[in-house]
C-alpha cells in the first residue's frame, strides 16, 4: 500500500481501553481507523459500510466466538483481511479462527512496532505467523494426517519444505533467518508459510461444503456463513 492511500482498519474489541489504545497507535502511525466495534454483531453490521482493508479482531467477544465473526466478516465483506489479536492465546480458538479465514494472529503483548508491521503485512495479504500459530498449524496438519480414513483421503499434507519452515517459525526464527539458513529468498519463505495456511483454509471450506451437502443445507459455496 502506498502513502497516499492509507490502510483502512477496523478495530473489534470489547475492552474500551485497549480498543482506544490500538486505534490511537494505528492513527498515529498513519493508518485510517474507519470503524471500531465492541462486539461481533456490531462488527458485522458496520463492516459492509466501513469497507476496511484489515480487521483487527479480539477473539474474546461477549456475543460471538472469533470463528463466527471471522466467517461472518469473510462473507459480508470478502475484501477485509482479518488479523486476530488475543490476550490469552486460547489455542483452539486461534486455530479455528485461522481455519475460518483469518490471515494472521498476534498476542496482545506484542510490541507496538511488531503490531503495526503485522497490520501492514495483513493488508498486503501476507500471513502473520507467531511461533504459537506455527505450532498450532503444524499440529493441525498432523491431526488431519492421523485422522481415520473415513474423513476422506484428501486430508491436506505439508511438503517437507513447508514443515521444515513451519518448525523454524515455531522455534522463533524470523523469515530472514530462515531464508539465509535455507538459502531461499525472503519471498519464497513467506510463500511457503502462506501456502500452509491456504491449504488449511481450503480444506476447512471443503469440509463445510461437504457437511452442508450431507445435511441437505447446500446453497452457496461459502457454506452458509451468512452474517
Amino acid at each position: 500500500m502506498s502513502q497516499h492511500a492509507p490502510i483502512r482498519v477496523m478495530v473489534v474489541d470489547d475492552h474500551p481501553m485497549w480498543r482506544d489504545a490500538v486505534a490511537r497507535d494505528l492513527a498515529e502511525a498513519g493508518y485510517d481507523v474507519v470503524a471500531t466495534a465492541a462486539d461481533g454483531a456490531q462488527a458485522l453490521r458496520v463492516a459492509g459500510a466501513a469497507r476496511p482493508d484489515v480487521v483487527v479482531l479480539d477473539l474474546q467477544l461477549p456475543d460471538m466466538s472469533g470463528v463466527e465473526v471471522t466467517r461472518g466478516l469473510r462473507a459480508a465483506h470478502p475484501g477485509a483481511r482479518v488479523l486476530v489479536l488475543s490476550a490469552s492465546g486460547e489455542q483452539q480458538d486461534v486455530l479455528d479462527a485461522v481455519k475460518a479465514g483469518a490471515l494472521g494472529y498476534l498476542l496482545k503483548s506484542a510490541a507496538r512496532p511488531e503490531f503495526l508491521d503485522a497490520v501492514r503485512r495483513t493488508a498486503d495479504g501476507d500471513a502473520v505467523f507467531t511461533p504459537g500459530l506455527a505450532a498450532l498449524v503444524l499440529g493441525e496438519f498432523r491431526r488431519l494426517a492421523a485422522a481415520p480414513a473415513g474423513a476422506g483421503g484428501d486430508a491436506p499434507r505439508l511438503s517437507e519444505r513447508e514443515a521444515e519452515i513451519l518448525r523454524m517459525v515455531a522455534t522463533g526464527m524470523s523469515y530472514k533467518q530462515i531464508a539465509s539458513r535455507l538459502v531461499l529468498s525472503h519471498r519464497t519463505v513467506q510463500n511457503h508459510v502462506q501456502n500452509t495456511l491456504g491449504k488449511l483454509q481450503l480444506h476447512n471450506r471443503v469440509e463445510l461444503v461437504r457437511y452442508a451437502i450431507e445435511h441437505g443445507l447446500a446453497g452457496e459455496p461459502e457454506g452458509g456463513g451468512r452474517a
Partner: protein
Amino acid sequence: MIIPNGCSFDTVTVTATPSGAQRSSSEPLWRSLAVFRFVSVGYAALRLGTVDQSEYSRPDWAWAVIAVMAAWTVGTTIAYARPDRRTWPLLGADLVVTVGLLLSTALLQYPDATGHGALPVTAIWMAGPVLAWAVRYGRRMGTIAALIVAGCDFVLQRGAALNGAVLLLLAGWIVGHVARLAAEVATERQRVIEVEAASRERERLARDIHDSVLQVLALVQRRGAEAGGAAAELGRLAGQQEAALRALVGAGMGGAGLRKSDSAPDVAPGASGEVDLRQIIMSAQTDRVTVSVPAQAVLLDRTAAAELTAAMRAALDNVRRHCGEQTRAWVLVEDEPDQVRVTIRDDGQGIPDGRLAEAAAAGRLGVSHSIRGRLRDLGGSAIVSSVSGEGTEVELRLPRVSSIAVASAPRTA
C-alpha cells in the same frame, strides 16, 4: 473447554426446589401404582367371575363391590395424578374406603370359605393405599398402612391369611424405602447439578477476569516500554506477570475439570496415569521464553512427561546461564504419530564448533548429563546443534510406543 457466553443463563433454569425434585423422583412410582390398581381390579373381577363364585352367598353384591372398586380406582388415579392433591384427607379416605370394601367380604362370602383362606372380594387390590402411603410418606407410614389393612384382613379371615399379611407388610416397608431412596438420589443429583452450574459460572467469570487482567498487563507492558525510564521497568514487570498469567490460564483451561492434578508443574515420579504434556510445559512460559504447543492434548505417561519437562528445564537453565538473562528462547512441542518432540532454541551466541565436545571431554557438561541422560533412560534421544552466532537448538525426542515400558524399567545408565 470453551464456555460460550450465554451458557450461564441456561444453567440458571435448571435450579429447581428440592421438594420439587423429590416429587418428580416419585412420579414413576405413582404411575406404577395406578397401573397396579387397574390390573388388580381386573384380577379381582376375573377371580369372582371364574374361580371364586361358589364361595359367595351374594354374588350380585360382590359384583357391586367390584364396580365400586373400579370407580374408586379411576377416581384415585385421577386424584393422585396431581402432586398437590396427594394430601392426608385423600390418602386417609383411600385407606378407609379400601378397608371398608375389604370388610364387606364378611357379608358376601360364606363364613366357611372366609375362614378357610378364600381370597376376600378385593383380592390384592387392597394393597393400593398401602403403596400410596409408602410412596407419599415413606417406609414408616407405609408399614403403618400395611398393618391396618393386613390387620383387618387378619381379623376378617380369623388368622387364615397370615401369608398375605406378611407380604403386605413387606410391600409397605420396601416401597417406602425405595421411595425415600429415589427422593434422596434426586436431591443429591439436584445438588450436583447446582454445584456444577455454579462452578461453570465461576469458571466463566474467572475467564473474563483473567482476560481483562491480561489486557491491562499487556497494555502496561506496551506503554511502559515506550515511555522509558522507570515506566520501562514497570512495563517489564507487567510483561512478566502477563506471561505468567497467560501460562496459568492456558494450562488451567486446557483440561479444566478432567485431571485436576495436572496443573502442578512438579509431577511426582512414579505416579501412574497419562498427563497432557502441554499443561506441564506451559509453566515454563515467561516474558523471555515462548512456549508453542498444538491445539490437541499431548498425552504422555506421567513419569515420561515429568522427565521430559525436567530435561527441557535443564536446557532452558543452560540458556540462561551461558547466554545471559536477556536471551530469548522458544520451546516447541510436537506430537507426531511415533514420537513426541520438544525443541528448545535460543537466540544466543551459539556454541562455537568443537566446544561442545571439548566441554564433554572436560566432564563439565550439564547438558550431557541431565538432558541426554534423562532422555536415554526414557528410550529417547537428545540432539544439540548450534551454529555460531545463531543460537543453539536442543531437540528432545521421545518415541511413543516404547516410552512407558522403558520408563518403568530399572535404570542401568
